[in-house]
């Protein structure tokens, strides 16, 4: 799904008076380096890190961010995006993600920015679908693992 910024009002980011012209967006986007996930595709990655969905045929995005869906309540979805190696929480319109096929908790997706006819275009694509999900445990450190085991075995852990 593609979204064009010019389709919407200029005050789009939720902060007072912070209006963004396309020129400003364009220069800012070019100023930022691409993240490590845009390293050459020949890089060998373990299978659990490999995306199962073919990436967009579009090439040369201004920028590509990767993230995942945390939760949806009401008309907003909380997502986490990876920015410069950090996890950053964002709130996206839930409908936007749904229309793009991002509908599952922990589901990874890509967000690409393109310039097209002097407008900034966004494209969101899921990187995996429901059938690719598998249940597994969180990699707890040894102390948290001990705590979990203790809590699950404790007879009086219930209320």
């Amino acid at each position, binding site marked *: 799904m593609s979204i064009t910024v010019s389709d919407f009002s200029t005050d789009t980011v939720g902060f007072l008076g912070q209006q963004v012209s396309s020129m400003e967006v364009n220069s800012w986007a070019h100023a930022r380096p691409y993240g490590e996930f845009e390293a050459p595709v020949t890089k060998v990655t373990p299978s659990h890190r490999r995306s199962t969905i073919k990436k967009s045929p579009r090439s040369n995005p201004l920028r590509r961010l990767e993230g995942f869906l945390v939760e*949806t309540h009401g008309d907003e979805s909380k997502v986490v995006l990876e920015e410069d190696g950090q996890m950053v*929480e964002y709130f996206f319109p839930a409908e936007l993600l749904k229309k793009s096929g991002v509908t*599952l908790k922990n*589901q*990874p997706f890509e967000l690409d920015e393109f310039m097209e006819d002097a407008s900034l275009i966004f494209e969101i694509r899921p990187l995996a679908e429901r059938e690719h999900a598998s249940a597994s445990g969180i990699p707890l450190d040894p102390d948290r693992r001990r705590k979990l085991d203790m809590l699950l075995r404790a007879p009086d852990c219930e209320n």
Partner: protein
Amino acid sequence: MRIDFYESGVGETTIITFPGGGIGIVDAHPSAYTSRPDIFQLVEGKKIHFVCLTHPHTDHGRDLVGVFENAEPEVFWHTIPDFKQFIYRACETQQFFPSPNREFVEKYQQEWANVFLDIFAAVQERHIPKRQLRADLQHETIDGVEIHFLSPEEKITQDFIEKYAAEILKADPEGGDPNLLSAILALRYRGVVVILGADALKRNWEDAIKRFRTKGLPKALLIKVPHHGASNAMELRHGASHRDYLEICSRNPIASSVIFAGDAKHPEPRVYQRLTEKTHAACLSNGLMNSRSGNKPLSVRLPGVRRGAPPAICHPVLSYEISENGELIKLTGGDCSTCPNAMPQRLTAAS
């Protein structure tokens, strides 16, 4: 009785000091701006009658870990109906997808789980009594202060657990909302009622208002605004049948309200407008103001997108006292009527 609300970035910290000098802690989260003192400074040398985790969200519980590991609270109040199932599902049965950012997904879920593992493990290992709060429990009395539990209803907690299981097992992002587990506390002392609304949602308030009236409590003079002033906690539609928490707040004299902004959006402008019209509203932090993150360019400039980041501070602490004469006295902090950041044009601009 005194109540201190501490600015806590995206989270909340409330400390009640009872007439006998002991305290009760209702949620705790460190300040992103370090304007809140360290939690140990706040509790040091004091008898802790209870620690209440109003619902299982880290912005309400992160700083409780140290309290349970180092202090001596008499009892832990929480609202999680089946903790074993809750933590087992969160830690052992998450649905993960193959992707380049899988490690980030795992780390995110891990940080969330760590807080609740640490809290419940400390409580278990130190033999601190636990009590699951529900709306049908009898009130507690500490030093003459009645503490009434208005939420959650048992039907809501059961519904949460079922939806939470679906969320984990089926990767349903619209599964159980932990905000529905919010413990709404009503404190009555010398005829004055204070409501601590946690992150309770509209569905919680429907029942909580009935409970409030059944108990014959007088209308509240002070309310901690639920869910950081979000629109899903207040009915804003005209003519809606749903009940609104302002119904149980005093109009004469006008009640005071305290707002912890949740992130760089809350309080929701329409909610904020109603609060300023109907109460003496005061913000610890206000998402309507330009925040620290708001002064930097957002990385994602997609329409409708906002960053989850701490809003700007209005007051580092808001403190109130209920005197022996039954008067509510504001000890620290102004309110939005005198705050230049809450001018009407800002509201209009935000709307």
